[in-house]
């Protein structure tokens, strides 16, 4: 369990992480989502005691990271920067980490095996591809067989096979009761792996919700209508009590799945339609809307905003 309480990091004037409070629970995969520069990596570095928080607190099962006596058997982390000396072999990289925590040497061979790097274990890390480097980082995270795992953008640089592998790995790690905390800037990736979702933008908490709830709220269906007689169509819809929202590209959007009804309505009023289609908003769009609004809000107001209620502002679409 990772608990953040009002965690804040300021670099001079710039606030990188702004009063983050949330809990990462064991037994599930928690996705940590936000656009680039939202403060995900800074938050993860503060959890690991690498960066000192300006204010607030972060605890791992009630303890500060630097108080852990056996850090690698407690937390395994893959950070965005590979963090490997290019001149050192994969085996020696893992060995020196194992030694610093008195992890048995055979465990090095085991994790090399797990990530599929046994064949290149004695090769220098500088010859590794992005994907191989990522696997070496994952091997280091798994080294201590830790109860908490943090992955910063783990699928970066992996091929489709590797992406599938890391997804399965994260799910199985969580299923064993471990705490799994994964950051990503891709909603679609999270939708496939995460059970719980923490979304941040501009360093602030935007959402802390279960994945199921997020999908329920966001798989909004709507009907797109396009007509050369747009004004009349709007009138007709209005008379029928249907609210249509104008889309930028000249089409109208109507909430819900009323395509048949709208079609009949148009026929009855002899309206020409160029398009009438049922649409499903993607999670990616919902995520973008969520984070975009935080950015927009930020630009218009200098005052600290009251914490937004999850889902309050983006459902209007």
């Amino acid at each position, binding site marked *: 369990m990772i608990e953040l309480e009002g965690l804040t990091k300021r670099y001079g004037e710039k606030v990188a992480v702004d009063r983050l409070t949330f809990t990462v629970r064991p037994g599930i995969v928690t996705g940590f989502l936000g656009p680039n520069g939202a403060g995900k990596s800074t938050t993860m570095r503060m959890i690991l005691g690498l960066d000192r928080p300006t204010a607030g607190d972060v605890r791992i099962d009630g303890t500060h990271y630097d108080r852990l006596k056996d850090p690698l058997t407690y937390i395994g982390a893959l950070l965005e920067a590979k963090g490997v000396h290019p*001149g050192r072999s994969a085996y020696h990289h893992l060995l020196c980490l194992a030694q610093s925590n008195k992890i048995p040497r055979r465990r090095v061979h085991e994790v090399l095996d797990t990530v599929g790097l046994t064949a290149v274990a004695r090769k220098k890390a500088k010859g590794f591809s992005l994907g191989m480097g990522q696997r070496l980082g994952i091997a280091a995270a798994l080294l201590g067989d830790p109860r908490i795992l943090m992955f910063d953008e783990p699928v970066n640089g992996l091929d489709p096979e590797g992406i599938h592998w890391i997804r399965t790995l994260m799910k199985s790690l969580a299923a064993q009761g471990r705490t799994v905390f994964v950051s990503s800037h891709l909603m679609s990736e999270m939708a496939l792996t995460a059970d719980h979702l923490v979304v941040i933008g501009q360093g602030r908490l935007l959402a802390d919700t279960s994945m199921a709830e997020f999908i329920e709220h966001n798989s909004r269906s709507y009907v797109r209508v396009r007509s050369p007689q747009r004004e009349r169509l709007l009138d007709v819809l209005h008379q029928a009590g249907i609210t249509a929202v104008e889309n930028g590209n000249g089409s109208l959007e109507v909430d819900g799945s009323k395509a048949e009804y709208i079609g009949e309505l148009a026929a009855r009023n002899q309206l020409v339609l160029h398009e009438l289609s049922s649409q499903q908003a993607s999670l990616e769009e919902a995520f973008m809307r969520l984070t975009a609004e935080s950015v927009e809000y930020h630009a218009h107001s200098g005052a600290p905003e009251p914490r937004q209620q999850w889902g309050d502002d983006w459902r209007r679409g």
Partner: protein
Amino acid sequence: MSTPPPPMPQTAAPDWQAAPGAAYPAPGSTHSGYHSPIPVVRTHLGHAIASEWTKIKSVRSTMWTLGVFVLLVVGIGLLTGLVVSGSDPDAGGESPLSLGFFGLLLGGMCVITLGVLTTASEYGTGMIRTTMVACPSRGRVLAAKAVVFFLLAFVVTLVCATLIGFLHVALLEGHNAKEPSGEEWLKGTVGISLYLALLGTLSLAVGSIIRHSAGAITIMIGAVLAPLVIALFMFSSSLQDVQQALFEYSIPNQMSIFYANSLSESGPSGWDPLWIMLVATAAALGGAFALLEKRDV
């Protein structure tokens, strides 16, 4: 630890493409938190030292710098010995050990380089984050690096200095050279080795402060050479005292004091250079410790 031998599940899946989920125990059994079969150990400085030893010996730059060091000390020492013994039938009662100075002075550059690389290279590669995650006690990391590097530098220098000392004594036999006394032997081997190892440890501390290999190496080489070079060109008589101090306390002059060869009669003598270097290194390490605790990694 009374934990039963851990059944390492990963061994069952030699191929990474096999879904690791299958290799682990059945999922869903525990949701109250995972407990690893790996015994939990309270880590201490010893573990960090073992880790740093693996690090320093597993990169080629260590082998290169130490290899060049041995080559310089032994090679230049051998050459000087051969030249002197071949051309000068009368060594004038000088100690043959003093011929080792030239090689060790140049070799000092390698020690400085290796010292800086031990700390600063981790910042260049990002390895430092991995290191600090594995060992969150930052002071322990720096202490382990300093211990490992100091011992390595001391042992390598001692072996080279002793070897070249015997060589010089043998080469100059019958050339009216002085038979080195016990203390001269001690200073010319253990003393100079301690001094060079401390100089390297000072560089290590500077590397940790500067966090940039090239920058720290430049600073250290400048610190070794600049005072002497500047003093050489101080012709004004009003600067005579400054010139004298720069000569006397320059690192090359301090090194040559171990061979009882000084540029002047006043200034540090005997074992003084060692104490000076000890204080400088302790101060730099103290600064490095304080900054390490204060800064973000």
